């Protein structure tokens, strides 16, 4: 035991310097003004941006839901095919991740643009050009495209552990494929669903690059708002810190609710 404590010391120091201290600093900024006096003003000012909060949460929910619907069957199929085929397929799924995030999003900018490939094609077949870029749809698309692997991987890793014989046992006891899905596979993959949702929802709700590049000026998200407070014309780190703090609280609440669905021995946060 004593030895373990000594070994964990560097990690504790690390956590203190790079996790605890920054959080304290954010909280400090959020509750003070320029003169360094304690104030609640920053927090109450966040209320003005309720619409941006709602939009961010809404778009992140939609993107997460789409990711889940797309990933679930894929992860299941992936987990049931031959072991040696699985690794190849997984690599294909991961391939887009090897390309830089900015580059991937830029690519969508040109694809969706008013003179982009998609609109040119649509024009050819007589429906278009449509307004694709600078819409909330484009933002959701960007989120789904970028964060899809974060959903597939945790789902795949729990499903891969589901023993084939458990599925056979369910068949044996009278389940058709549909019932097997809802009585066995979904309950057993619940931890993967919860962690997949977490891993997509958290980056999606706080992104600012995707909304900036694909959403135009009319689809401002929380991430953009925070960035503006620190790097933009609106420079106000106190308000920025307050917004971050509220965002953190929102994520915490949502994750706590999510964890209620996870079995006791597999809590994620």
């Amino acid at each position, binding site marked *: 035991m004593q030895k373990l404590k000594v070994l964990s010391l560097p990690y504790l120091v690390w956590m203190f310097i790079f996790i605890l201290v920054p959080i304290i600093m954010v909280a400090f900024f959020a509750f003070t003004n320029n003169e360094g006096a304690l104030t609640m003003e920053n927090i109450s000012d966040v209320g003005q941006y309720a619409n941006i909060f709602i939009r961010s949460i809404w778009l992140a929910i939609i993107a997460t839901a789409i990711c889940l619907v797309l990933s679930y069957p894929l992860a299941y199929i992936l987990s049931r095919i031959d072991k040696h085929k699985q690794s190849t397929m997984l690599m294909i799924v991961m391939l887009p991740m090897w390309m830089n995030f900015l580059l991937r999003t830029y690519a969508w900018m040109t694809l969706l643009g008013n003179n982009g490939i998609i609109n040119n094609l649509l024009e050819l077949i007589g429906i278009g050009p449509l307004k694709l870029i600078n819409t909330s749809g484009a933002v959701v698309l960007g989120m789904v495209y970028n964060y899809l692997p974060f959903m597939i991987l945790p789902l795949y890793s729990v499903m891969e552990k589901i*023993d084939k*014989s*458990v599925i*056979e*046992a*369910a*068949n*044996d*006891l*009278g*389940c*058709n494929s549909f*019932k097997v899905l809802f*009585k*066995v596979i979904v*309950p*057993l993959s*619940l931890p993967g669903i919860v962690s997949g949702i977490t891993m997509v929802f958290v980056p999606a709700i706080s992104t600012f690059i995707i909304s900036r590049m694909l959403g135009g000026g009319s689809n401002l998200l929380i991430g953009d708002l925070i960035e503006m407070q620190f790097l933009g014309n609106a420079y106000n780190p106190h308000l920025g810190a307050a917004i971050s703090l509220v965002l953190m609280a929102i994520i915490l609440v949502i994750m706590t609710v999510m964890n209620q669905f996870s*079995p006791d021995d597999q809590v994620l946060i």
Partner: protein
Amino acid sequence: MENIVSLKNLVVEFEDGERILKNISLDIKDKEFVTFLGPSGCGKTTTLRIIGGFLEPTSGDVYFDGKRINGVPPHKRNVNTVFQRYALFPHLNVYENIAFGLRIKKLSDKEIVRRVGEMLELVNLRGFEKRSVNRLSGGQQQRVAIARALVNHPKVLLLDEPLGALDLKLRKEMQTELRKIQQALELTFVYVTHDQEEALTMSDTVVVMNNGIIQQIGSPINIYNEPVNAFVADFIGESNIINGCMPEDCVVEFTGKRFKCVDKGFNPNETVDVVIRPEDVKVVPADKAKLTGIVESVVFKGVHYEIIVDGVDHKWIIHSTKAEPVGAMIGMDFDPFDIHIMKKTEE
């Protein structure tokens, strides 16, 4: 009695072209307790999986109640399985695991409570209802697996080594219990084991398999007393198997000596397997015996001593209630009807 399950010329080949089952044919009667007995890897589980619907034979037919059921999915067969590796649902507790099949069939809550309770009683797991199956011992898991299949009262229950993880005492108890249930509920049991004693004590019919081939089908007494070949004889009870030949009817020659026996109908001087059970070897004074040997080891086995005797061409295994001193020279003799003559199997 009607045949409830019939297997006709089943052949199973896996992708690598290896033949796992080679032409298996078998009729299982309604309410019968049939046991597949054979060494590891001989195809017992494979045969069971075909009856359960989890594996399609490469060729051959499966009949259930007179109807051909090739291609019918498992959930549409009136058959339940106790899987060799339990395959319990890890997300459900003991109670819900057992209730699973009944819930799928949408039985009333009252009926479910009653039948699951009955099963819990039977497998001795009262008080474990709420326990997660991940926190059970191997033997407890095995009993949940038995209860989960049995609670559905299927016409045919397939049991794949269902008592393998239990200790001797519990195994004996469960053997008796299972046999009682099978008779009380009038179910057909298809049971797999590689424990010959279990097969002999529980079954109506024993099917001895080796290498994907049925060696013999018969009642336990029939299998024990009249094994058709050396493999069955050896598998059913450790035996002395010696090469011999039949110079004439009722005379067999082995280890250079001639003995009286009761078998006839072999070709003159046909080579045969001579099978003599360890308990049928009589120890006699060395100077009065045709066969002699040196006692190599003596092991106490509870009811009897197992004596290994080094004869000229053969190490004899003898079960006797009397120990012999190691290193002593002893004589061996046999009654004519204890010498079993078997045709050589071509392989």
